[in-house]
């Protein structure tokens, strides 16, 4: 089974802190994604990556950056956390080999105080 692991289930940070959210997948998937989910707004794509060291902006990249130094790991970085970045963050991965079925991690609930 595909496993997508997010490093923290719950995270509490202070305004202005630099925050790292880590995501690791174990199925050699080329594609990795970061979404945030807010009540009433559904899932919104922040950034995605189709290969190591490649990154593309999604629909709401402002205030975020990403890093993909290794194929299995995709990190989301909040350079200076703000209260409006309090949200559920979901990492996902998929392969390029035909189906591109999307698999999600268990999510990180981030609270910025």
């Amino acid at each position, binding site marked *: 089974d595909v496993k997508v692991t997010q490093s923290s289930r719950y995270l509490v940070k202070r305004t202005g802190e630099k925050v790292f959210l880590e995501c690791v997948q174990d199925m050699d998937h080329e594609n990795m*994604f970061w979404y945030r*989910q807010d009540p009433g707004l*559904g*899932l919104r*794509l922040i950034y*995605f990556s*189709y290969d190591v060291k490649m990154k*593309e902006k*999604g629909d709401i990249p402002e205030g975020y950056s990403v890093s993909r130094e290794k194929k299995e790991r995709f990190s989301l970085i909040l350079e200076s956390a703000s209260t409006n970045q309090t949200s*559920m963050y*979901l990492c*996902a991965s998929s392969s390029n080999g035909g*189906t*591109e*079925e*999307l*698999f*999600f991690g*268990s*999510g990180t*609930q981030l609270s910025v105080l």
Partner: protein
Amino acid sequence: GIQVEQSPPDLILQEGANSTLRCNFSDSVNNLQWFHQNPWGQLINLFYIPSGTKQNGRLSATTVATERYSLLYISSSQTTDSGVYFCAVHDYGQNFVFGPGTRLSVLP
């Protein structure tokens, strides 16, 4: 871009009842998936179903790609079926587009 709609937005059932959830999409797709988000936030893959019919236990799904819709059937519902059901489509572009979800509550 492609639009995805889901209906109904909310559904309340008594345990043991059957239900049908619908996903409409506005353009051709090469991938359609159904997910269940449990109360703890985990998104669980239910079906990868760009066309045709699949069954997995009490759940089944049908996608009619030519008519741009997919249906998720839940039979003999259980309280553990509660949560939000999302469909997501991949439109030959780069990314997946998610519907707004159907929130299902199954009462004991």
